[in-house]
């Protein structure tokens, strides 16, 4: 078996069992749907049919039916790139090593490089897309609601340069935290006798200790996506996790993780420790004021899973400046930083200021004369 063959075998293209057109996972119905003949299949049904189809293909031994994908010889600066041909339109699709699944940017035909996501890179589980591209566009357009300071035409659909459904690799950390938190606590009581007011401050050393477990704190494992953006689209509903299967990737991009190890755990650990401190502090209810002085909290990683989480990445270009938005592909939570319309912002501030001054003046004048 030569190398080109190996890759071509690993490339997976889902075919419609009815009409053999290429078939994609449809997020809105949660099934694979053929855009040509309208047939719908679950993953199990598709698997069953594709086994039969593979047998048929072998029997027919028609190599032209297979995707012809060649890995170009790494040369000079292109050493990190993989190129392969789209079997439908013949275009060459170029992806970098991090891109594990992609579709033809020209005709939209799907082709998946199995090698990137199999073996040690195979995720444990996946949340399939539940929101489709149209709802991402809708979400972008509806950003204008309740945001008076954004430029008027920012939310125009024409400003969307690219929308990609991407499975982002996430590390899910289970962290067990144990230890004590030591706080300075004050109980302050006030009373008065005659004209004299008294304030009594009782000072305590407050200790709260114990254990608690966090399950699946997500840390994005792709360096190409901003960690803060990935933080902001949380939370995902983990009850929708399914065992990983390549078939879900069809029609979407997928990233292979390129960040791993201490740095990622560090992020999850910080969050677990912060929340544990807050929990311990909240447990000391009888104090008027309290402040953490030190703690002996020890976070331990009890489990780590590699999961693919669905994200719609929306690239927007407005007045020649790029903006990135992201939508949680499961819940539809849409986030991103919208530019401020400077004129509107100043105008708004002035109007609010004037209104407050007028209302304040009326209140002041009326209350004086009552």
């Amino acid at each position, binding site marked *: 078996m030569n190398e080109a063959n190996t890759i071509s075998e690993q490339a997976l293209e889902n075919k419609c069992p009815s009409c053999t057109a290429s078939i994609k996972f449809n997020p809105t119905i949660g099934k694979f749907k053929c855009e040509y003949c309208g047939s719908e299949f679950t993953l199990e049904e598709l698997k069953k049919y594709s086994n039969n189809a593979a047998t048929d293909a072998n029997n027919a031994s028609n190599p032209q039916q297979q995707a012809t994908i060649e890995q170009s010889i790494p040369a000079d600066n292109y050493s990190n790139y993989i190129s392969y041909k789209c079997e439908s339109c013949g275009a060459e699709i170029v992806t970098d090593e991090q891109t594990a699944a992609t579709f033809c940017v020209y005709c939209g035909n799907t082709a998946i490089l199995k090698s990137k996501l199999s073996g040690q890179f195979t995720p444990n589980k996946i949340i399939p897309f539940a929101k489709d591209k149209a709802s991402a566009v809708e979400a972008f357009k509806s950003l204008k609601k*309740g*945001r*008076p*300071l954004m430029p008027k035409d920012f939310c125009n659909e024409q400003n969307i340069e690219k929308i990609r459904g991407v499975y982002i690799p996430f590390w899910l950390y289970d*962290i*067990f935290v144990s230890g*004590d938190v030591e706080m300075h*606590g004050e109980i302050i009581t006030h009373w008065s006798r005659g*004209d*004299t*007011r*008294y*304030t*009594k*401050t*009782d*000072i*305590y*050393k*407050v*200790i*709260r*200790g*114990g*254990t*608690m*477990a*966090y399950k*699946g*704190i997500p840390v994005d494992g792709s360096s190409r996506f*901003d960690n*803060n953006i990935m*933080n*902001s689209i*949380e*939370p995902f509903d983990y009850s929708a996790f399914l065992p990983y299967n390549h078939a879900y990737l069809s029609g979407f991009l997928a990233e292979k993780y390129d960040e791993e190890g201490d740095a990622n755990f560090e992020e999850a650990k910080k*969050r*677990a420790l*912060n*929340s544990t401190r*807050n*929990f*311990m502090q909240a*447990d*000391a209810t*009888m104090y008027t004021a309290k402040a953490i002085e030190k703690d002996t909290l020890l976070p331990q990683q009890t489990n780590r899973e590699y999961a693919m989480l669905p994200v719609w990445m929306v690239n927007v270009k407005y007045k020649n400046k790029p903006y990135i938005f992201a939508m949680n592909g499961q819940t539809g939570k849409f986030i*991103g*930083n*919208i*530019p401020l319309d400077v004129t509107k912002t100043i105008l*708004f*501030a002035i109007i*609010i*200021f004037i209104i*407050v*001054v007028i209302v*304040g*003046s009326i209140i*002041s*004048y009326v209350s004086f004369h009552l």
Partner: protein
Amino acid sequence: MKRIKKIVLLLFTLLLWITPAFAKVPVTYDRNTLENYGVKKKWKVTSENQANVMRSHAVDSEEKIYDFAGVLTDDEYNSLKKQIEEFIQKTNMDLVILIESFPYYQDRENEDYAVDFYDYNDFGMFNDNYSGTLLFRNTYESNPYYDMYNFGVAQQYFDQSRMDITLDGIYDNLHAGNYYEGFSSFIKYLSNFYDAGMALDDYELDENGFLQKKYEYPFIVIFGAAFVITAIIMGILISKNKMVRKATQAENYLDQSSVQITNRQDIFLTTHTTSYTVSSSSGGSSGGGGGHSSRGSSGGGHTSGGGRHG
């Protein structure tokens, strides 16, 4: 005949020598014979205050000094009258000195009497607010008393501290019975305070002559508050455009069933108590009760200095 002339002259001289203290007995009128019982001011005579009206002497308001107790000589009267006329000329506020002698049980009786006297005679009629000051001296032997009462604009010129200074300043003279010196320095005190300008220029008078705090636009408070409120609202609006935030918490991922708080210690270290006294707003003045603003039986307002005994 010559002898008779001599005796008459001697008697006349004797009379002059005996009577100077009683030289100027105030002229009073029977209020029943006067229109509206002699009240020319805007105050209404009602069943409630009629007794007060009838009780006050109706006098000629041009006399200014009403010595019913007979403590001033003619010369003293004339000199004081001149000083008062100069004061009125300068300040356009009336000035009245009332001296009586009657027993009383409460200081308030003196005040009622003196204020009625001012309200139901034509004092201060030459200006809009019946402005003027009355110094009342009760020479009642077993408990002599004096106090000053301000009406109209005089309330703004002679505030509590100025009244305290004035009343304390004339105490020695009045106590010793040196009335001319006492009244004369009283007029000087008022004249000097008038020159020093209005003490309560942040107040104004209402239609009944009560002092009201003038409305002052709280510029700093309103603009400061407007600035803060605008900043908060703009902060909220701007934050709506900034949706990308780093996550610092993990409470969504906490397995509630796994939480075990096994160590709860609350160790008492120390305690301390602080106290402070809230001062009451009325400050006592020397030699008498605190001055105050009150309502006369006429319905008009006035301030008084907190009377002095002695």
